[in-house]
């Protein structure tokens, strides 16, 4: 690098530039927080959705599945599973409940989590709420 461009200048670009973009980022975060309620439908987050998210986390579902495209890629996307299953919570519950303890020979299998009825209902409600988030039309189609 050339001599008229000094180390002090480089240092100032680092501190100045970083500080500037940190402030911009915080500003945008503030703005995002203000506009989110229109897109996440938080008015529908009830006790069940909250419990459902906890069931989702405490069974590490994200270790195989993706949710809104984030997580693992071993098993199907679940952000839109509610619509994929024909807007049916019962179908979701039925699927989770019917997983064989020892899996399906030779196939990728989902564990049997032995969830209570209340937990099943909650996780289905959580997935229903998730499917209603405004994700700018993602995923491109029902298959996720």
């Amino acid at each position, binding site marked *: *690098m050339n001599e008229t461009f000094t180390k002090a200048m480089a240092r100032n670009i680092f501190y100045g*530039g970083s500080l500037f*973009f940190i402030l911009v980022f915080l500003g945008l975060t503030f703005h*995002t927080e203000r506009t989110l309620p229109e897109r996440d439908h938080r008015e529908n987050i009830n006790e069940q959705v909250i419990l459902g*998210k906890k069931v989702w986390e405490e069974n590490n579902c*994200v270790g195989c599945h993706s949710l*809104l*495209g984030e997580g693992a890629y071993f*098993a199907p996307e679940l952000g839109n599973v509610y619509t994929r299953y024909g807007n049916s919570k019962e179908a979701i519950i039925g699927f989770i409940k019917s997983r064989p303890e020892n899996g399906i020979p030779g196939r*990728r299998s989902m564990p049997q989590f032995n969830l209570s009825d209340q937990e099943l209902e909650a996780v289905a409600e959580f997935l229903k709420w998730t499917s209603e988030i405004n994700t700018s039309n993602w995923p491109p189609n029902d298959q996720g």
Partner: protein
Amino acid sequence: MKYQSQSVARLYFIAALGLFAGQILFGLIMGLQYVIGDFLFPAIPFNVARMVHTNLLIVWLLFGFMGAAYFLVPEECETELYSPKLAVVLFWVFLIAGALTIVGYLMVPYAALAKMTGNDLLPTMGREFLEQPLITKIGIVLVALGFLFNLGMTVLRGRKTVITSVLMIGLIGLAVMFLFSFYNPENLVRDKFYWWWVVHLWVEGVWELILGAILAFVLIKTTGVDREVIEKWLYMIIAMALITGILGTGHHYFWIGAPEYWQWLGSIFSAMEPIPFFMMTMFAFTMVRKRRRDHPNKAAVMWAMGTGVMAFLGAGVWGFLHTLAPVNYYTHGTQITASHGHLAFYGAYAMIVMCIISYAMPLIRGRVANSQKSQRTELWGFWLMSISMLLITLFLTGAGILQVWMQRYTDTPLPFMVVQDKIEIFYWLRLISGVGFMAGLGVYFWSFFIGTEEEAAKDNAQMMAMAK
């Protein structure tokens, strides 16, 4: 090695490499589960293997960064470490906490682990990369505090250099951003929004400072180029990293419910994120070309150049590939993501840790460099691992393109599992490449045990004589 206390780094490096081997073992288990679905089911379900794989990755990289800091800071500051004892105590605390966590993942169903460890008090578990029980997370924070205190006291007492300041900013940033792992809003959209403050602002933010500082240190030592020049480069690299990387976080806000302007901001700023990685490659190659001395440790120089190139490929090229919103709409959460994650983590962070180990370990063991034979073996490991990782990346990219084609970018989308069956061949090829990687790691380990003290001394004397 100039200061006795630098040798605590040895413990950290050995642990890092041991955990690395564990990470790869679980990678291979998952690679098999991808093609033989019921392999080890239900003893080790895929999600458990994945947690072990990714958490071991993070923990061994942290061990590597800590070892690097304990080696580099005393030398830069020209003083002994504030407290080598504290460094040893924290090492064991971290290793035991880490080991117990992994054992917990493997021995107890995750839901039971959550109950046992008080996830009810403050639910933080069950989110990708942040699966650790609350007590482990608290342990990580305590270890980080003790570590930063120890380094901070050393820095305060000694010479101040740009490399130590940058390293310290990076490490403090790492600890601060980790605090967001304790914040888990009930609203999934907000949860995801701040989750990325840990994950993205680590790898595309503060970790780049750590990477840059370690790279600069190794280049100063091995090339003898003027410190002024190196420090100017370092400042420019990290300036570009944060200027592009902070708003670049927006490339994760396209489809999670955040407002749509993030599609523009995220695309534009993250499209510039390859710049700092490109500069790192230029940095390494330019410094080596302008070198004022020929250091006998050729292997360390190779790692330094290698990490530049591979980080640019994995983070820069493979990152750019899917970072523009219209592309990401189709590739989001597919094997394309996995291909990029692998090459980027390996090229940038696994390789920089192996770079500093390559430079520091011989010195800690009392020689300038290892014997020629040992270095040749180490370079075999370098090439085997790097080429295997490139192959893994290419096969996953192939799988990802077909996945997008059949499941997303089509009028007749096929179900996920149907597509997975159709692209199985790529997963077999990935698995075979993974075995190659494991072999490379084995060769690399073997290089530590080759060559006697005398051979090393003889080879180094010869190198020095030739350089004159």
